[in-house]
C-alpha cells in the first residue's frame, strides 16, 4: 500500500485483508485500526468502503431464504412461547472468507504476509524431493443419513428441498446451509438424522429449533428432525460449534428448554449460548469451550463412581480426560479455539503432533513420524483455505521437514 495517499474504495474492496476486517476478523481489525491512525484519509475511505460492502450484502440477501430460517426458528417456539434472547448472529459465510494464503507471525517462527504470496525467498529454499507434493484444502462437503437409513451426499445435491420426512422438509439453501422446515402441523413421531463430514470436509446446519451448528472435518451430529417440547438432545463426534437458540417451555414460561449435547460419557447441558466442543478420539482431552452464556459439563467416565459436573463461565474451557475427570482452564484464547470456524489454523505453543493431527484431518492425510520428533512448541496462524504445500513451506522454516507419500505425510527431523 502506498502510505502517502489513502487507497481508493475499489482498492480496499478488492483487498482480501480489508474484507476480512469487514467480516469482523479480530486480527485484521487491529491491523486496520492501526493503519487508520497512520495513513491520512484512510479511515474515511474505509468507512465508505465498508458502507458499500454492507449495502451490497443487504441487497443480495434473499428474503425467501431468511423467511424460511425465521419460520423454522419460531416453529419450535410454539405459538405462545416467548423468546428470551436471539442467538447473536455470526457471519454465516465466515469460513469461506479466508484470504489466499495469509499467514501471520506470532512467535518469530512463522512468516507474515498480507497479500498472500509466500515470499519468493522461501519458495527458492524449498527443494524437497517427493512424488506427491501437494493436497487441496478441505471444502464444504458432508453426508446426511436420514431416518430410513438412506444417505444423501450434500455436495452433489442441488439447492432447494432435498427430501421430506413426514411433515418436515429438508432444504438446502442457496448458500449451502441445511435447514429443516416444518409445515406447522404436529409431528407424530420423533425420528433421527445424522450429518457427518469426512476428513477434508466441513458443513453448516440449522437444527429444527433454530440452533446453528458448524461441523469441522471428520465430525458428526445426530439429532431429531423435530425436538420434543421439553428437551433438546443431540450427540456429536469430532469438533462442533453451536449457537444454541434460547427456547422457553410452552407450558411453563419461566423454564428454558434445555439443550443437551452428548459425546460418549460427556454431557454438556446448555440453555441458549455459544460454545465449541472438540472431542476427537485421537486427542487426549475432550474440550468444551464456552464463548457466551452458561453451560454445565458433566462426565460419567469409567474411572468415576459418580457423575462429575462443572458449571462453565464464558471464556473458560472444560477439559474432560479419558477417566472422566474434568479440569477447567481459564487461560484459553477463544480466537485460537474458534479459528477453524473462522477459516484458520491458529496455534500457540502447540506441539508438532497436535498441529499435524489438525493438518491430517483437514487435508485428508495420515501422518507418521520418522526419527526424533522435535519437542519445540510452535505458534502462528495460517488460513485453512490454502494448499497443503503452503502450510508445509511455513513449517519447514521452523526446521521441520516433510516427505509426502500417497495419502500420508511423513514428518522427518
Amino acid at each position, binding site marked *: 500500500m502506498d502510505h502517502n495517499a489513502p487507497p481508493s474504495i475499489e482498492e480496499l474492496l478488492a483487498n482480501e485483508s480489508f474484507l476480512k476486517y469487514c467480516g469482523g476478523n479480530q486480527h485484521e481489525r487491529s491491523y486496520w485500526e492501526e493503519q487508520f491512525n497512520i495513513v491520512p484519509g484512510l479511515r474515511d475511505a474505509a468507512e465508505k468502503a465498508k458502507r458499500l460492502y454492507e449495502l451490497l450484502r443487504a441487497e*443480495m440477501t434473499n428474503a425467501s431464504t431468511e423467511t424460511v430460517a425465521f419460520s423454522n426458528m419460531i416453529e419450535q417456539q410454539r405459538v405462545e412461547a416467548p423468546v428470551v434472547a436471539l442467538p*447473536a448472529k455470526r457471519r454465516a459465510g465466515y469460513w*469461506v472468507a479466508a484470504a489466499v494464503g495469509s499467514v501471520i507471525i506470532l512467535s518469530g517462527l512463522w512468516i507474515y504476509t498480507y497479500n498472500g504470496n509466500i515470499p519468493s525467498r522461501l519458495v527458492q529454499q524449498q527443494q524437497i524431493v517427493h512424488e506427491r507434493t501437494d493436497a487441496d484444502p478441505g471444502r464444504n462437503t458432508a453426508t446426511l443419513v436420514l431416518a430410513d437409513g438412506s444417505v444423501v451426499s450434500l455436495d452433489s445435491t442441488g439447492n432447494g428441498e432435498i427430501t421430506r420426512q413426514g411433515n418436515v422438509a429438508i432444504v438446502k439453501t442457496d448458500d449451502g446451509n441445511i435447514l429443516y422446515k416444518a409445515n406447522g402441523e404436529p409431528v407424530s413421531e420423533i425420528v433421527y438424522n445424522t450429518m457427518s463430514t469426512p476428513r477434508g470436509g466441513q458443513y453448516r446446519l440449522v437444527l429444527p429449533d433454530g440452533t446453528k451448528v458448524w461441523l469441522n472435518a471428520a465430525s458428526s451430529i445426530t439429532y431429531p428432525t423435530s425436538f420434543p417440547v421439553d428437551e433438546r438432545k443431540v450427540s456429536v463426534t469430532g469438533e462442533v460449534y453451536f449457537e444454541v437458540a434460547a427456547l422457553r417451555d410452552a407450558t411453563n414460561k419461566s423454564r428454558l428448554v434445555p439443550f443437551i449435547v452428548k459425546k460418549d460419557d460427556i454431557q454438556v447441558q446448555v440453555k441458549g449460548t455459544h460454545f465449541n466442543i472438540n472431542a476427537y478420539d485421537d486427542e487426549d482431552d475432550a474440550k468444551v469451550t464456552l464463548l457466551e452464556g452458561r453451560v454445565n459439563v458433566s462426565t460419567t467416565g469409567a474411572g468415576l463412581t459418580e457423575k462429575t459436573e462443572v458449571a462453565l463461565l464464558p471464556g473458560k474451557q472444560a477439559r474432560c480426560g479419558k477417566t472422566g475427570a474434568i479440569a477447567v482452564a481459564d487461560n484459553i484464547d477463544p480466537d485460537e479455539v474458534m479459528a477453524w470456524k473462522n477459516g484458520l489454523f491458529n496455534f500457540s505453543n502447540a506441539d508438532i503432533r497436535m498441529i499435524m493431527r489438525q493438518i491430517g484431518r483437514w487435508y485428508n492425510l495420515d501422518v507418521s513420524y520418522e526419527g526424533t520428533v522435535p519437542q519445540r512448541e510452535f505458534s502462528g496462524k495460517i488460513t485453512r483455505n490454502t494448499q497443503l504445500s503452503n502450510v508445509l513451506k511455513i513449517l519447514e522454516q521452523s526446521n521441520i521437514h516433510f516427505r509426502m507419500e500417497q495419502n500420508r505425510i511423513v514428518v522427518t527431523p
Partner: protein
Amino acid sequence: MSNSMAEMPDRWDKMRLGDRDAMLALYESYYNDLLSYGVQLSNSTDIAKDAINDVFLHLWEHHSGLKPVKNVKAYLFACIRRKIFQPVYANKTFLFTEEAFAESTEISHEEVLIAVQQSDAIRMKVKAALDKLTERQKELIYLKYFRDMDYREIGRTTGMSLKTAYNTIYNAIKILTGELRDTLSVALLLLFYCGK
C-alpha cells in the same frame, strides 16, 4: 413482488389474530427494505438481520396485544430503528461514531415517513447501480461479497484467472462507487437518520 401494499394492513390484522403465515408474509415482503434501512443505520448486515428477527419475534410473541396500524411499513421501520439504537447493539457496531448512539431514539411519525422514503431511495440507487454492471461483474460481486469467496475460489468456480477475477471485481466496485458516491458518506446519513 406480487403483494400489493393494500394487503399489508390486512396481513397485519391476520397476524394480530395469530395467523402465522400472515406474519411470515409480512416478514418476507418487507425483509429487504428493512434490511437496507437497518444497514444504513448500523453499517452492519449482521446487526440489521438480528434486529429484524428480534422485532418480528417480539411482534409475534405479543401479537394479541398489537393495535391496528395504517402504515405497516412505517411502523416496522420505527421498530427497527428503536431496536438498533438500543444500547445492546451499540457496542457491536463497526465504524460508527459514539455520538450516533447518544442521540435520542425517539422520532416523530413524520420523521419516520421521511426515513422510509430516504431509505427506499438509497435502496433504489443501490439496485440501479448494480444494474449498470455486466452479468459477469454481478456474478463476481455476488461470489465475492455475499458468498465471501476469495479470489482462488472464484477462479475455481468461474474458470477465471486470479488476475481477471481481481480486475473484474475492481472495475465493478469502481462503477458502483461512481454511481453511489453521494450515498456512501456516513456523516450525511447520520444527519438524516438520527432525527437531527
